[in-house]
């Protein structure tokens, strides 16, 4: 893919530091233009959707061009100017299910080199008992110095850690070096030029795919782990050994015409497996909808063998036709649960959820999205958690996301592919085992402030709740905490004292990395919380949340939906305005993109000789 081959990728380094789940990744790549004409070099990398870009720079002939995070509105003028000039190449694009692609190109003079550096940060989320760090690599050509290096610091202790790559062959396997001690792990992978080769006599590289680091920490049984660092605290709560709560679940299934074919078949298949796995103490109901709404039975049923068998028979009859009356279907599901609760037919200490699966916009009954949100919110009154699954690409995912957030749930996209059944079951597995309900975190107001969300509807098995905040006094090294929730047997209340640890004792030989990480973790979580609030509260609350999120995004240099990164890069001699526009897509705009990113520069033949002279402005945006 690299032609002419006079761009030599000299160095690709992906360095990642994880401290208490907060991951800081720096991708650096250096390329040399060995030709005697200028050439365009493209830097493409992929980063997780959950990450925020924090820095980008290009170093060309000793001069560094650094990205600057600005308020989106303020950067908009440049954006509009570039749009009007008709150049709309995006710097950030959706890429596949989990990643976003960042790409920028720059014209490099003959015999010159360029070094690109991209930094991003994210809080790793625990799912099904593990954290996962994903690094996508696709250098497209052999690289003189290729290196992935990751250091994981977990004060709670590391329970296990695996490192592997989709491109790792038996020959490459010994090159994945992994050292795990009690609280620290080091992973590295650094193949030589020859080891990167696809075959002994060809120039193709076999380094092409995803590199994963999966790990878990040792979890405390009761209060969880509280870390106090430099005036900030973070509370990780994931107690082991809790029994799951019985659940009352209503499956709301779209059977409109657009579901016909593979989608309907995959939905039936997934439902059959999910029903088979229902624990007998659970209660469930099935609501199918197209133009109208059909319920399998008029009330929730215990998941006995007989009931499950009959429900499966009902699922087998589901076929796709008609319009999409989502409003009535969700309201029916809420009603089923509310009536059952009023009639005391559900187990005590159980948790209620609705799982909505749809592939399109409302086209029948109430069709106004705002009105549907309002109707569901008013009927539910926060009692039931609603999870939304958007199947395929025609669905307005943003609409589902807001509905889920307003009802304390989550939304997930299900990609139309052969593994859709696995995706459906996977999501269900994540949310089907609830260990605690109505989880509340109490910290004394005279000790802490600016605490991220303290109330959570559920704690799922294998997940973790993270709460962070600021201490009123930097000198404070301990404060009391209390966690209360509903468990299967009774009220779950644990009390204790959070106290600061001495990092010099925990990691005596390590450089100091933790103070800044905890503060940034707090900022990252707070921004995520505020962005959620934008979809939930009153107009005034939304306005305040937006203003606060913007302030923090700018202060901590995060590219979030409210900010843009403006990158200054060398100007092209021939074009007066050589501008690219970066647009991070909203969920609605995301499309599965089969293209994969390249954490390395690649070359494109230059259309003509060009040199850079004075700076112009480029920018990376986020939406």
């Amino acid at each position, binding site marked *: 893919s690299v032609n002419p081959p006079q761009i030599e990728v000299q160095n690709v380094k992906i360095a990642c530091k994880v401290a208490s789940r907060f991951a800081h990744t720096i991708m650096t790549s250096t390329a040399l233009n060995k030709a005697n004409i200028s050439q365009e070099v493209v830097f493409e990398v992929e980063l997780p959707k959950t990450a925020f870009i924090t820095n980008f720079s290009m170093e060309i002939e000793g001069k560094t061009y650094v990205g600057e995070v600005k308020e989106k509105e303020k950067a908009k003028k440049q954006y509009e100017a570039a749009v009007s000039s008709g150049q709309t190449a995006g710097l950030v694009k959706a890429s596949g299910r989990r990643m976003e692609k960042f790409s920028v190109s720059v014209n490099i003079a003959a015999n010159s080199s360029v070094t690109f550096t991209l930094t991003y940060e994210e809080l790793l989320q625990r799912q099904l008992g593990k954290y996962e760090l994903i690094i996508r690599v696709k250098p497209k050509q052999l690289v003189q110095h290729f290196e992935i290096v990751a250091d994981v610091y977990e004060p709670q202790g590391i329970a296990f850690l695996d490192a592997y790559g989709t491109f790792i062959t038996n020959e490459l396997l010994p090159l994945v070096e992994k050292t795990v001690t009690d609280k620290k792990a080091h992973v590295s992978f650094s193949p030589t030029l020859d080891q990167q080769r696809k075959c002994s006599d060809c120039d193709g590289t076999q380094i092409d795919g995803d590199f994963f680091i999966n790990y878990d920490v040792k979890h405390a049984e009761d209060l969880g782990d509280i870390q106090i*660092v430099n005036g900030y605290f973070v509370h990780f709560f994931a107690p082991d050994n809790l029994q799951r709560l019985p659940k009352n679940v209503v499956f709301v299934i779209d059977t409109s015409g657009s579901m016909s074919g593979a989608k309907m078949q995959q939905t039936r298949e997934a439902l059959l497996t999910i029903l088979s796995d229902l624990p007998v103490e659970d209660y469930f109901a099935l609501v199918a909808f197209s133009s109208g709404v059909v319920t399998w039975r008029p009330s929730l049923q215990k998941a006995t063998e007989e009931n499950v068998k009959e429900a499966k028979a009902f699922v087998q009859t589901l076929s796709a036709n008609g319009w999409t009356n989502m409003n009535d279907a969700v309201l029916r599901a809420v009603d089923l649960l509310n009536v059952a609760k009023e009639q005391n037919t559900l187990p005590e200490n159980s948790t209620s959820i609705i799982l909505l699966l749809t592939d399109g916009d409302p086209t029948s009954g109430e069709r106004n999205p705002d009105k549907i949100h309002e109707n569901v919110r008013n009927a539910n009154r926060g009692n039931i958690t609603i999870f939304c699954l958007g199947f395929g690409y025609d669905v307005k995912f943003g609409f589902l996301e807001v509905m889920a957030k307003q009802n304390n749930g989550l939304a997930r996209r299900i990609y139309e592919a052969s593994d859709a059944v696995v995706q459906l079951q996977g999501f269900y597995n994540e949310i089907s085992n609830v260990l605690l309900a109505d989880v509340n975190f109490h910290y004394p107001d005279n000790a802490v402030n600016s605490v991220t969300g303290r109330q959570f509807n559920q704690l799922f098995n294998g997940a973790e709740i993270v709460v962070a905040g600021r201490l009123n006094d*930097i000198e404070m*090294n301990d404060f009391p905490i209390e966690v209360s929730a509903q468990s299967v047997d009774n009220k779950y209340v644990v009390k204790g004292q959070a106290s*600061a640890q001495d990092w010099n004792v925990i990691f005596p030989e390590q*450089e100091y990395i933790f103070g800044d990480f905890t503060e940034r973790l707090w900022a990252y979580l707070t921004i995520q919380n505020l962005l959620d609030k934008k979809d939930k509260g009153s107009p005034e609350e939304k306005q305040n949340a937006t203003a606060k999120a913007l302030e923090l995004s700018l202060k901590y240099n995060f590219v979030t939906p409210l900010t843009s990164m403006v990158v200054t890069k060398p100007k092209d001699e021939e074009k007066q305005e050589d501008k690219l526009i970066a647009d991070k897509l909203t969920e609605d705009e995301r499309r599965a993109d089969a293209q994969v990113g390249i954490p390395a520069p690649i070359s494109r033949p230059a259309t003509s000789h060009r040199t850079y002279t004075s*700076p112009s402005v480029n920018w990376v945006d986020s939406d």
Partner: protein
Amino acid sequence: PHFIIEFPDQNDAFCFNIDDTPGTIFNLITDPLTGIMVNGQTIGDKKIDPEKTISTYFGRFGIIHAKFGIRLVVTTQDILVSEKGKQAKLFWSENTAIKGPNMDLHVTKDRSLTVTLRNSMKFVIILHKVWNKHPYHQDYLGFYTLDSHLFSERVHGLLGQFFHGVTFEVSDVFQGEDPDKPDAYMFVKGHNLTVTRGWQKDFRKDVKKGENVPCWFIHNNGTGIIDGVIGDYIVSGLF
């Protein structure tokens, strides 16, 4: 430590850093006519962050007013005051106000100490509190003169030499190494210096965030702007 010399009338300022080994004591103000002397001792970090250069801060100040028989030792832990043989110890952890015949003291808990010496000077010492379990950094102090017009013409020291003003001229602003920080030529005290536009923080109003003060930065320990060399200001003891 960072030094900032502001010229409010000209709406300008210059600044410089003094880097030396921790423990060094610098003379900041000496006025033989009024009998006032201010010395400051530097501290370093608890240990060296491998990714950063060695930084020093002021950790202890010694202030003397010979005519009033006043001595003050201000550290990050406490404030020792003696006046004509009588001694008192104040702590940063309490709000305290003392009004005497020649000196007023006001401690704002964990934040600042304001000292007014009758008919001579007024200054503020800011306490910068750092998380006590921080592996690298530790508490340090800042010194701000609020009123210096009653010093004599003979006042000197790293700060004192600027109390009666200094004439400087900045010209030919040009692009420096950092595109955001232009360089310029400054003519001062008979020297032609290359200076860089930057900023330093004034922490009087907000001890945590500080307030940016744009200033012309003089490189190499203030060489050219201070009289003599930095070694001339090193003293052997706090008093």
